[in-house]
């Protein structure tokens, strides 16, 4: 791992500002800070670790391209990155040329390191399990799945999910409510994920 001159406490907003002013290291710090969460989010929407890895890089390239459009939530860029990821995942599902383009470039740069057999087997098991879970989720509309995954699995508050999805907070609430009803998972209302925020739950998002 490259060394970093940024402290772990540097706020996302400060790093983002430095990055957009031309400081590549600041953007690299943001990548290291959030890549793991984005990686797992992509996996949980697609059930494929390899594609998740490719899309993780694509998310940050796309985020850089759209860097002037960033929206912070609780001083974290992570919710907005989830939104960027969601768009790329949709592009990928539809065989989108833009997503494929990014994939081809990322794959080209992948490290060809060894992949132990037990690790491969575990990942295959993960993918099978994830496909089963997603099959159950198929009763939901895509927008309801997005709300469920962000709020329940990724631990975002309604406000953060609203930033990620680009919709009002009330829309997040209603989508999650419908998702709960359809899935009948019995998530109690007092488990409302409005607070604490994802950044608080995950220690500034560092993995």
């Amino acid at each position, binding site marked *: *791992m*490259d060394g970093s001159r940024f402290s772990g406490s540097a706020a996302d907003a400060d790093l983002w500002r430095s990055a957009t002013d031309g400081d*590549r290291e600041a*953007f*690299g710090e943001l*990548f*290291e800070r959030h*890549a*793991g969460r984005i990686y*797992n989010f992509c*996996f*949980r929407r697609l059930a494929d*670790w*390899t594609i998740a*890895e490719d899309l*993780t*890089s694509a998310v940050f*390239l*796309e985020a*850089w*391209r759209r860097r002037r459009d960033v929206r912070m939530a609780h001083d974290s860029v992570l919710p907005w990155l989830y939104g960027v990821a969601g768009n790329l995942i*949709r592009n990928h599902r*539809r*065989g989108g*040329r*833009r997503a*494929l*383009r990014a994939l*081809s*470039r*990322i*794959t*080209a*740069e*992948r*490290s*060809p*390191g*060894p*992949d132990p*057999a037990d690790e*491969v087997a575990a*990942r*295959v098991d*993960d993918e099978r*399990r*994830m496909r089963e*879970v997603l*099959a*159950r*989720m*198929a009763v939901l*509309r*895509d927008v309801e799945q997005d709300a469920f995954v962000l709020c329940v*699995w990724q631990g975002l508050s309604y406000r953060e999910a609203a930033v990620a999805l680009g919709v009002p907070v009330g829309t997040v609430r209603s989508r999650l409510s419908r998702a709960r009803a359809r*899935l009948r*998972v*019995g*998530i109690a209302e007092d488990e409302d994920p409005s607070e604490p925020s994802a950044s608080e739950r995950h220690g500034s998002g560092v*993995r």
Partner: protein
Amino acid sequence: MNDLMPPKERDLDPVRLAAMKRLILDRVAAERPVRRRRARVVALVLVPAAMIGAVAGYAGTRAKTAEQVADMVTCYQSPSVSAPAFGFPSAVDQDLAAACRRAWTSGALAWPVPGPAPSSWVACSGPEGGAAVFPGDHGATCESLHLEPLPPDYAGAVARFSALRGDMAASFPDGSCVNPSDAETQARTVLERDGFAAWRVTATGFSEAAPCAAVSLDPVNGVAMLSGIVEPALSDAAMGGAERTSFCGPEATMLSDIRDAIIAAGFEDWTVTADHAPSAQWPCYAGLDFDPATRSVILKGHATR
């Protein structure tokens, strides 16, 4: 609730994370100033040269230059061009043997994994472009397959082609809007700047209904191809309509949803059809296609829920 518990999260491999970070920062550094949006959109697609070369009928016994094989790598399961294979884009400083071993052990090359990965590999010029890598430990492998060995300056050619690929991508960022004639000029500028001045730029398939461009690179024949595609606003609207029912029937509802969506987006002169009716076995469609000639959005492919 347990049925809805995803597998535990995993960390990215630190080596890969570092490589990904390096790639991203390289791309960021290489970025050119963003152009202002104009009327039309250009998307860039890097098409495997092997496919293009095959279509163009270029493949033959003539020895290829390093530039002609610099774009793709294909690993084969055994020393035969008809063996199971796995292809991926080339990369700067790529260890071809290590990459093929990884393709082998990950199951990408063949599944189930056909035993331990070979330790030795031989790289040849692919029959239709790209590098072709076979299990083996002697130089006669290429000759026995009637293939040329990789040109000696392969690594340098990969670096040059990778730069071109990156610069093309940076010149046509997603969502940028570029008039097709400007796109030709822009592609030509990139080619000349990156030392590919001998390449041609072609443009096909543009029409009023397909006013945007996809760019493909064909190193075998030295061509940057611009192809007309429909406006992203149309494809996005159609996708949004189809996603209302997650691409699953009934057919009439799907057609109506898509039709409503594209009309709302201003494409009321387009029609929506399906190339087959959904069935109990295949209640969903796999995707959408667009036919600019008939201005049709077409539901295609068979899928389960």
